[in-house]
């Protein structure tokens, strides 16, 4: 396997979304000091795991969206499509989450959808939102500072209760009012839970249209394959097709659907074919 620092790697072959990182064991890689003289610590270069590698690669391959500015995120099902051992993926994600390298958000498209975003990207996203609110001349943006300082660092879960939210925000010294919470909800950082009014989900701001595109793109791709006579298509043909209803590219959707088990790929003498999986 080609050992390169993942940030520099640009994958040229889109044809095999499944075959990357399919070794089940995590391997310590030999460091190559010449490649990246700016690395902070050798430890980071010496030990990778498959999940982190896949995450970085998919983050680099996140499609460019014209209308919305969203930092790259990766869906959990996409990771499952690339890395073979799902239990290891779950465990690696959990340890990365505890080390505050990334954050996991529960999405409202489907029962068990999660989005994974690196912490730096998430902070950038929050800063963008704050900057836009400043441009609209909204005052009293202290709550966002409190949010970044207290909650993101200490509360690592996907949801938070009302009590805890207020107590953590008020640690900075200010008094937390209902308006502050409304500001956070309006900015898109928190969403009220439907089943429980005192709990909030953490969320990525400005992601609404992307999620709509995700849901519609999934439906479109699945219905396209279901309409065909044998419910399958060659990957080479599928690559060239553009989805009408989704701003995300075909590779994103393919990985997501393969990882969640709706599609499966098979090797044939003419290449890979994608087929709708029946249970």
């Amino acid at each position: 396997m080609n050992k390169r620092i993942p940030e520099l790697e640009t994958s040229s072959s889109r044809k095999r979304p499944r075959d990357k990182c399919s070794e089940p064991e995590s391997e310590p890689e030999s460091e190559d000091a010449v490649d990246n003289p700016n690395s902070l610590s050798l430890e980071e270069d010496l030990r990778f795991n498959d999940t982190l590698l896949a995450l970085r690669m998919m983050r680099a391959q996140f499609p460019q969206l014209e209308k919305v500015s969203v930092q790259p995120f990766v869906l959990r099902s996409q990771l499952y499509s690339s890395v073979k051992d799902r239990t290891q993926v779950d465990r690696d994600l959990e340890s990365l989450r505890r080390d505050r390298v990334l954050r996991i958000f529960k999405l409202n498209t489907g029962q068990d959808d999660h989005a994974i975003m690196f912490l730096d990207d998430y902070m950038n996203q929050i800063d963008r939102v704050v900057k836009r609110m400043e441009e609209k001349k909204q005052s009293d943006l202290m709550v966002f500072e409190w949010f970044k300082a207290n909650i993101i660092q200490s509360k690592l879960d996907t949801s938070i209760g009302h009590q805890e939210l207020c107590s953590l925000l008020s640690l900075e010294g200010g008094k937390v009012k209902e308006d502050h919470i409304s500001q956070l909800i309006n900015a898109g950082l928190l969403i009220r839970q439907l089943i429980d009014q005192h709990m909030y989900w953490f969320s990525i701001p400005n992601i609404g249209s992307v999620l709509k595109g995700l849901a519609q793109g999934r439906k479109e791709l699945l219905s396209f394959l279901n309409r065909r006579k044998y419910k399958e298509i060659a990957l080479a043909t599928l690559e060239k097709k553009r989805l009408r209803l989704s701003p995300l590219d075909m590779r994103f959707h393919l990985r997501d659907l393969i990882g969640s088990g709706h599609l499966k790929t098979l090797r044939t003498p003419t290449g890979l074919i994608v087929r709708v999986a029946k249970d």
Partner: protein
Amino acid sequence: MWKEIREREFGKLRPNLFTSSVSKHRLSSIQLSNSKEIISSHRASINSLQVDLTEGRYLLAGASDATVAVYDVQRASDYEGGGLIAKHKSVLLINKQHEHGHKYPVSSAIWYPIDTGLFITGSYDHHINVWDTNTTQVVMNFKMPGKVYRTAMSSLARSHMLIAAGTEDVQVRLCDIASGAFSHTLSGHRDGVMSLEWSTSSEWVLITGGCDGAIRFWDIRRAGCFRVLDQSHSQFGRRPPLLVRPSTNKKSSSAGQSSCAKVRAPHKKLNGNALKSQVKTAKQRLHPGMISSLDRATGHYGVITGLKVTDDGMYLLSAGSDSRLRLWDIESGCNTLVNFETTRLQSSKSIQMALSQDSALAFVPCMTTAKAFDMWSGQTRWTFRGHYENINCCWYNALDQELYTAGNDRQILVWSPSKLNFDEVDEWRNGQAAVTDQDNWSD
């Protein structure tokens, strides 16, 4: 095979090891049985299966047309195909015509754990009936406030005879056969209870899974539940590490536990929100055992449709309508993060899962197939395809290494280890009934 028997004779191989290697070998060749068939007497989907725990001989099935039937899985009622196919008809059948029978779907049918003289059925007609097997009469009847989803009795119980009943009501009721009355109710769930199991390590511990997604552990001698499983509490690996570092994960995310509620009391002055007064009065009114009802942790994002405890009492497998299976370490209450590759699990009815003898394999009904998962890595070992519609329940018979599955297509299918080739050829050549205890040289 003979070599292993020799080694066991000489003492080189331990008997337990020999037994487990033979059963594992047989289990690995499981397929749809071509020599054994159960003739189902049901006219609607079968909801519950159980083989009795004492002899491992009688299979009890409850179906949606209010029929309950018992099948003898060891002795066939007649043979077909020149004696090669054994047909098992029902030994006992109770249907709607029975004067005290159920009138609505039977959702759960279980044997009395001590012997096969009694069995207990729970139905959507809000009744739980205790039947005498030999006379087929209802001995005792309990009326519930809602549809009964599941009943369970503890197989370890030596000092109580309680039937735990999960209904569409939020309270779990314990019915006592000895006295004929309800002994007590367990409150804490916020929606109906679809699955419940007794612990296999203690006769006093009951585990329930509700439609609100919570999995609660109850000690029936105390008030309230002593543990609620939270899917965000996780550990890596089968057991937590020996050196316990204070993990930020656990402490910060428990919202409803009593210690945290007390710590937050001085902060209330800063908040000034309307919740303050409500929680304070709620704290003053609640019995300390009931504080657990404030805990809103969920085990799954959806309804808990199935629970299964391993035989050693250390792990719990739970299935939810979010199409996920989770393996929990009971001692630490953490999610072990084993990922079972399930695409979809049925979400409207509860499913019954089975475990192999040493808990290495989990048999789970996934829509129209039953899958055998490796318990510790989550990989799918085998997929059993044979049913035409969704499978609701499965049971693993460890004595014969057979799997019974039943579902909405009204059939009970038997999956058994394939017979050895020379046995089959021998029978075909002789053309005799395959009665196993006939010697080759008897006249």
